[in-house]
């Protein structure tokens, strides 16, 4: 069973990688299979580990309060009937309101007040540490002022705004560098996965290359696929 599993997962991996050569039928097949399997997987998990324990079991135990979410959820299926479609707004309104309520508190505390408090730093003492603190406080203030839209950025405001965009660009450079590591990690993971059974990988690479070459010759590569 183990080798069959290796053949299947290697073949699917190489079908997706074939997109690097060109968008081709093997890639289209693998992509649709991916969307189907991941959708089916989610439906099973959402039922088995949320709807069943928190709704079905609770109703079975006599917790009738859970009839309310059941009714709200069933209302969503009215979306498919022309007359009752407006009813499907109710569950959506309930969820949007709940997330809005949580976000106001969470963003207000976690990302606004605590970050503000954490940046009220002593920049006169501590030698180089103090200099870094000064740059931190000045950088935060300048970046906030860069995103100030109510006044034209001229005169002193322009200088502060330029300092702000400078800090922002360095932080985007840092994100760029870290994003590169994330993307490369995925490719390393795949390479190590394929190298585990080099022979099977080599055979499959050969097969798929042949299919692609034959296929692309037959369709005389249309311009704009991949340069």
């Amino acid at each position, binding site marked *: 069973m183990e080798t069959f599993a290796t053949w299947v997962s290697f073949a699917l991996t190489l079908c997706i990688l074939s*997109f690097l050569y060109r*968008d081709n039928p093997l890639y*289209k097949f693998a*992509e*649709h299979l991916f*969307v189907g399997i991941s959708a089916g997987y989610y439906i099973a998990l959402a039922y088995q580990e949320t709807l069943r324990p928190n709704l079905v079991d609770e109703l079975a135990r006599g917790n009738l309060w859970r009839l309310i979410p059941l009714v709200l959820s069933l209302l969503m299926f009215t979306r498919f009937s022309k007359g009752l479609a407006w009813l499907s707004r109710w569950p959506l309104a309930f969820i949007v309101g709940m997330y809005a309520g949580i976000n*106001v*508190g969470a963003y*207000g*505390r976690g990302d*606004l*007040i*605590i970050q*503000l*408090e954490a*940046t*009220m*730093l*002593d*920049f*006169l*003492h501590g030698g180089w540490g103090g200099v870094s*603190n000064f740059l931190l*406080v000045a950088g*935060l*203030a300048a970046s*906030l*002022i860069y*995103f*100030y*839209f*109510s*006044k*034209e*950025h001229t005169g002193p405001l322009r200088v502060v705004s330029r300092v702000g965009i400078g800090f*922002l*660009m360095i932080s*985007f*450079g840092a*994100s*760029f560098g870290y*994003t590169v590591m994330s993307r490369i990690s995925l490719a390393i993971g795949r390479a190590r996965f394929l190298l585990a059974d080099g022979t099977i990988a080599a055979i499959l690479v050969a097969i798929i290359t042949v299919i692609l070459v034959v296929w692309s010759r037959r369709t005389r590569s249309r*311009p*704009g*696929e*991949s*340069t």
Partner: protein
Amino acid sequence: MIRLPGIAAAAALIGTAAFAVEPPVSPRSFDTANDGGRSVTVEWDAPVPAEPGVDVIVVRTGADGEPVEVGRVPMTDGKLVDRSGADGNGGPENGVPYEYRLSAVDATGTESAAVSAGSAVARPQLFNRDRFNVLILLLLIISFVLINVVRARNGAKFFVRRLAPVDAMDEAIGRATEMGRPVLYVPGIEEVEDIQTIASMLILGRIARKTAELEVPLRVPTRTPFVMAVADEVVRAGYMAAGRPDAYREDDVRFISSEQFAYCAGVNGMILRDRPAANFYLGRFFAESLIFAETGFAAGSIQIAGTAEVTQLPFFIAACDYTLIGEEFFAAGAYLSQDEMLLSTLKAADWTKVLLVTLLLTGSLLMSLGYPEFREWFVVR
């Protein structure tokens, strides 16, 4: 046997003193503040000199007179919270007075006399006073939002500063006219109710009107049927506003595919086939941002991007000619569409930024001069 009362008594006294354990000093008990009830806090100070290894046993007696041992903690803790356990039972009932008695016990097990920490009644509070600062700051920001919504409703004019990418838009469409090549508008890959897609639709309306006036073909590939429907309405309205309803071509706004990379391959194909003079990438993007930007660069188009998706901004900035960064994207939407909702949000955010910068500089200055109390007020408990 010679009675040596003095020595024996003294020895007994010293003995008790030497061997006896000092009970906790100034014990007190009170309802635990800012909680949901069924909890009493008992506090005490360790006797000086504090002997190591001495614990404190807390005993509670309720109205029924039954003494119940609540817990045993090291003397140095100085505090014990008597509340219901993880399984939900135990802990004092609300509204019932309890008498708390404390006794110290050392490693050998000798116990001191029990001292009373008075009686206390557990009560739930309606408001957590520790979080008063969060409430004030939130109410302040909320009032900024509501004030500006009312001002916008009453027709107040809101000034939005010039944004380089917005000025570049007209110039890019002008270039498309000269070169007789189409304009491509990619509204991001999120669903229609996402705030960034909404802002993108507002900008699309203005771009559509401009392309209608200059008779430049406009292509709008979308990733979801809903976005296609809304974009179709917006572009049609733009052509109407420019007085050119006839110039609108049905398949200019087209649903490509809902799969991320299939949509990517489709848009790439359009860029390389039509070789548009100007590409707009405005909305919410994920990993595909850098694929569009690279293909557009290879095709030689002017590229103007805008998103609040922070992870994609580095790629747009590095590969496009102009980029609306984070809130600039919403500001551009507000400026171009004069939309009440976006303008009031912008103004409220500006007011709050002035407040934040003031608080930040004041707090840092006071911290540097040795007054941490100001910063203390902002701690979230």
